[in-house]
Structures are given as structure tokens and as C-alpha cells.
């Protein structure tokens, strides 16, 4: 397999009966994803897009032998949905698409996550795709091409921009992971990079960071110390003023000047990662690295 998801993944959709849940379930199935069940309290016994719905995630996982869950539950209930998924041992990957979950809820989910062996991708992320095999989430499958470049990004549409350029130049992707734009997220850059480092099907990695926090700096340190797979970088938000939230809840340069694009660019370049000025530069850099 590539990383996290492949054609054998058996996927539950939490919130499958909602508008977004239903639409993207259809899209995922159309892409070839093995969606085996939905889970929505009170909707057990129904069917959506040909998929059986259960009242609880545990029932769904047991009945359909699932190993993965995708969460499309509205923000007020999404924290609870994450806890429910993390409470089922059989699920080793939970991908939370929902944007706007209260940060304190995410903090508690994150605390719980540390006690499990599961991966949680997101929240507020576009999902994970292994082109040609399966996609989890809302990524537009048609722009991806199977190949050997891994991609990890905090931003959805920026990912699409870079992937589209890669694909148009004939550079396919092993797996693309949208880790999400929230201040607290499950799988970090470092964890995603570690997965790619160990993946035999990944020859290079594109990492798209943005302002806010210190995940990119930690990733740079990790790359410097542990990675042999080459990485090309991009950082969005060079022109962002301090103290303003740039769309993503996590994209904010602090008043005291931490979390700037420059700090991240410097860290990555010190780790030998070429950082493109434009998305096209990134693709040029990837070509050089391969």
C-alpha cells in the first residue's frame, strides 16, 4: 500500500445521512473507495448510496469489518463523533473533514488520541487520497494521478493547485494527506512525513505549510535528522499581518512574531528543503529532486 488508505481500506462514513455526507459518500464510492457502512444515531437500518447505516460506529465496524472512518458530522457534534470512532479499537484511521469544531473539543479529542494507536487526520481537512485506489473526504479525485510523490498539506485548495500542476507535468502522487488548517490537529507534518519516509512507493514529498504554530519548524528538524526521502516545501502567508486569522483557525502569526512564514521557510531551507516562491516553483523543485 501507499500510506494510510488503499483499495483494501474498509470505510465507515459518520454523518452519511447529511447533505455533505451523502454527496461525498457517492463521490468516494465513484472513485473506487470501499465504503462499507454509515453510522448515524437513530438512522440504523436505512441505506444511503447503497451502503447500510447503523446507529453506532461500533455496530457498523463490527458488522462490516471496517478499519477506517470518515467524519462528516456538523461541528457541534463532531468532537463526540471523533471520540466515538476512537473508542472502537478496530478503527486505525479516522479522517475528520468537519470545519469549525470548537477548539476545546479538539483539545480533548487530541488528549484521547494520545492514548490510542489510531491515526486521526484533521479536523478541518480535505481528506486523504491514494490516487487510483481510494479517497477519503472531499478531495476532487479527477485532478490526481497515481505516482510516486507524496503530498502533505495544511490547506485544501492549495493542495489541489499543487497537485494539478504536478499531474499536468506528468508527476503522479503516491498519497496526498490534507492534515487540516486548525490550531490543533491529529496527524502532524512530522507524523505524515514519517509515514512517507517508510513508504517504498514514495520517492519524494511535497509539504505545503502555512503561517501559525510551529509544526513546520518541527517538520524541518525531523527532515534534517531522519529523512532520506527528498522533500520540496511551500509556505503560504508571507504577506499575512500579525494577529489576524487568515481563514484557517490555525493560520495566525502571533503578536510576538512567532509562526511567521519566514521562520518556517528558514527552518526548511536549513534542513535542505527547497521552498518555492510560487506553486509552479514547487513543481520545478520536485522535478529536480526526482
Amino acid at each position, binding site marked *: 500500500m501507499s500510506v494510510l488508505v488503499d483499495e483494501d481500506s474498509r470505510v465507515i462514513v459518520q454523518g452519511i445521512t447529511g447533505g455533505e455526507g451523502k454527496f461525498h459518500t457517492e463521490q468516494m464510492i465513484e472513485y473506487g473507495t470501499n465504503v462499507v457502512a454509515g453510522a448515524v444515531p437513530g438512522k440504523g437500518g436505512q441505506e444511503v448510496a447503497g451502503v447500510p447505516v447503523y446507529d453506532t460506529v461500533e455496530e457498523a465496524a463490527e458488522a462490516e469489518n471496517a478499519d477506517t472512518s470518515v467524519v462528516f458530522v456538523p461541528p457541534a457534534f463532531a468532537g463526540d463523533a471523533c471520540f466515538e470512532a476512537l473508542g472502537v479499537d478496530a478503527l486505525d484511521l479516522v479522517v475528520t473533514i468537519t470545519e469549525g469544531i470548537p477548539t476545546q473539543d479538539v483539545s480533548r479529542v487530541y488528549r484521547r488520541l494520545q492514548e490510542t494507536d489510531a491515526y486521526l487526520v484533521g479536523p478541518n481537512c480535505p481528506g486523504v487520497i491514494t490516487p487510483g485506489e481510494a479517497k477519503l473526504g472531499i478531495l476532487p479525485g479527477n485532478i490526481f494521478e497515481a505516482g510516486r510523490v507524496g503530498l502533505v498539506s495544511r*490547506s*485544501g485548495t492549495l493542495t489541489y493547485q499543487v497537485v494539478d500542476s504536478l499531474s499536468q507535468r506528468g508527476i503522479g502522487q503516491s498519497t496526498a494527506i490534507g492534515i487540516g488548517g486548525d490550531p490543533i490537529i491529529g496527524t502532524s507534518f512530522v507524523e505524515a512525513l514519517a509515514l512517507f519516509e517508510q513508504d517504498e512507493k514514495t520517492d519524494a514529498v511535497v509539504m505545503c505549510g502555512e503561517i501559525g504554530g510551529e509544526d513546520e519548524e518541527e517538520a524541518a528538524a525531523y527532515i534534517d535528522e531522519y529523512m532520506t526521502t527528498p522533500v520540496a516545501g511551500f509556505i503560504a502567508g508571507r504577506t499575512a499581518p500579525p494577529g489576524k486569522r487568515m481563514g484557517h483557525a490555525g493560520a495566525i502569526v502571533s503578536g510576538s512574531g512567532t509562526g511567521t512564514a519566514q521562520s518556517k521557510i528558514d527552518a526548511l531551507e536549513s534542513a535542505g528543503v527547497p521552498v518555492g516562491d510560487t506553486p509552479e516553483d514547487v513543481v520545478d523543485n520536485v522535478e529536480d529532486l526526482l
Partner: protein
Amino acid sequence: MRLHEYQAKQVFSDAGIPTPASDLAATVDEAVDAAEEIGYPVAIKAQVHVGGRGKAGGIKLVEDADEAREAADDILGMDLKGYTVDRVLVEAAVDFENELYVGVTMDRGEGEPVAMVSTRGGVNIEEVAEEDPDAIAREHIDPAFGMHPYQARKVVYDAGVDREIAGDVASILRTLYQLWDDRDGADAEINPLMVTGDKEVVAADAVFNVDEDALFRQPELAEMEEEGEFAESELEQKADEYGFDYVRLSGNVGIIGNGAGLVMTTLDLVDHYGGTPANFLDVGGGAKADRIANALDMVFSDDNVDSVVFNIFGGITRGDEVAKGINQALEQFDEIPKPVVVRLAGTNAVEGMEILNEDLVTVEQTLEDAVQRAVEYAEEVEA
């Protein structure tokens, strides 16, 4: 969402944190009445969301009714870093011996809350953090258990707070954490927490930022937000109304896009190609025609804007909907107010391109070309 000082003080005081006697005033007469009622000396403090109010002349200490009248007259209506002061808080002045800092925030790196205490209160704590990080004692809080009483004591002792008042400060910190936790705080701060000669502790300022994403379950704070927005700019009001993630900047190239990372990248490219971005505006995922038209209205309403670049990479958002929205917004004008460059990619981009009225907009195929064209237009206007 940031509460005004007077609102945060109300919340803190209701929870049992001591605050000075105070009253809100919208006119000079109200301010003087409040000062008389409270008794001099009082501080008259501008209620705007601006740092460094004191230095900028937004806070004045007065000793009698004449001074109060003069100060209120000066402050009410003044412009503080772009915000007009509509109300002042009239507050009993505290005679203090020293000033502490007490705060709770989310440490995003650790994914858990952190409580902070410092004996260097009354100054910009971020500067203290930079100059002398050890001057701020920190204690991480397990969000599952909440703050244990011993943790409040520990961080207070670690900060070197006098043993005489350590218990009171620890108790205030616990209350502050509980508020932060119950009320979905982003940051909660008391700076300064004043210590009087009698070893009383009083919250002389109050900061409470609420997690926007949690306002749905904080009706009381949501009401305060409504009530508190008396000094918002017209553009900010509009963005709130339309529900956009919008940040105004100082440049002249208006930017509209979908997805935070891509919009930021568009800003960066404007800069990269020699222009200056006028704003960040994210229409979000799955925007329909109306929303797109609203976005254009927003950017056109900014007098600084000379040209607009529209950059959409469709995932959930569909190119044809975007194109419809652009046409709809522009067709109502006899003359297009500012040149608009459009780049569509992804879902239904081809359909969108076909729909777009090229009499009204300039269409480009790549992000780079679109940004460069918008920068050129802006330069032409300024030239």
C-alpha cells in the same frame, strides 16, 4: 471574538474575581455622573479593541469632576488606531503596590491549555515572554481532568508570587481557568492583577477572547458580541453580515479566492509580482452564485482597491456557479468599477469559463498569469 474590557470584567466579576467599581458611559455627562458616583480618583478608559490604549491616550486618570469632564470629552469620539471611541469605562482607580499577570490560553503546539503567572504584570506580556521567558511561570493543564487545585498553587509559587497573597492569586487563577473552560475561551487574561497595600488583589484589566467556533453554545457571549460591536468599520460589518473570512490590508489589489491556503498564496503572489494585496477574502467551500456576488461587493466597497483577482480552484466549489455569480454581480453595473481578473480551475472550470462574460472580466488560465495581470491593472490605475 474579543469581549470589550467592560464585558470581560462583568464576566469575571460574576464569577467572583474582584474588580474595581466601574460603570460604562457613552456621553461626557454619563461619564462624569459615573465618576461622581464611584468617587475619585477614577480612570476613564476607551472601550475599543486596540492594544496600547494607555500610550495612545485612551486611558486617563482623573481626580475631580472637571478633569473627568475634560478626559471624557477628549476620549469619547477620538480615533484610536482606526477605531472611533464610542464608550468609556469609568472605573475606581486602584492604589497598588505591584502588578501581576495571570492568564490562560490554548497551547496549540501541545494541544492543551496552559496557565501562566508572572510578577511582571502591567506591561505587554508578549514582550516579557521574549525578553525574559523565565519571568513567566507556566503550567500545562490536562483538558480531560481540568485544572487541579495544586496546579494553580504550583504555577503561582513558581512565579515567585508573595506567600501572603499566593492563595488568593491561585484561587483567581482557578476561577479564570474555569471560566475559560466553561465559556469556550481562547485567551483569558488579567493584566495587571493589582496587589494593594492591604494585600488585596484586584483585576484592573480583563481580556476574554472567545472561540468563534463555540459561540453557538455560548448565547450570553454571543449577545455581548452583538452589543459590543459599536466601533466596527463598515467593511468589517459587511464581512460579518456576509459571513466571510475577511482581513483588510493596506494594498490596492483586491483578492477573492476559496480556501485559506490558496487565498494566502494569492496574496503572496501579488506581493511576489510587485503588487500589494488589499485584503484576504475566502469565500469558503461550495460557494454559490450569490455568495460570489457578495464577495465582489465587499471588495468593490473598499476604496483602496484598484483591481481584483478572482482565484478559484474548484473542489466542492463549482466553476459554473462562480462564473454565474461574477456575471450577476458585474452585469448590474453600467461601468465595471474596478478591473476584475478571473482564473478558474478544478470542478466545472471549463463550464465556468464558457459562462463568463469576457466583456466584463479578464480571464487567465493560470494563477501566476492572473495575479500578474491584476497587479498590472492596479499599477495602471495608480499611474
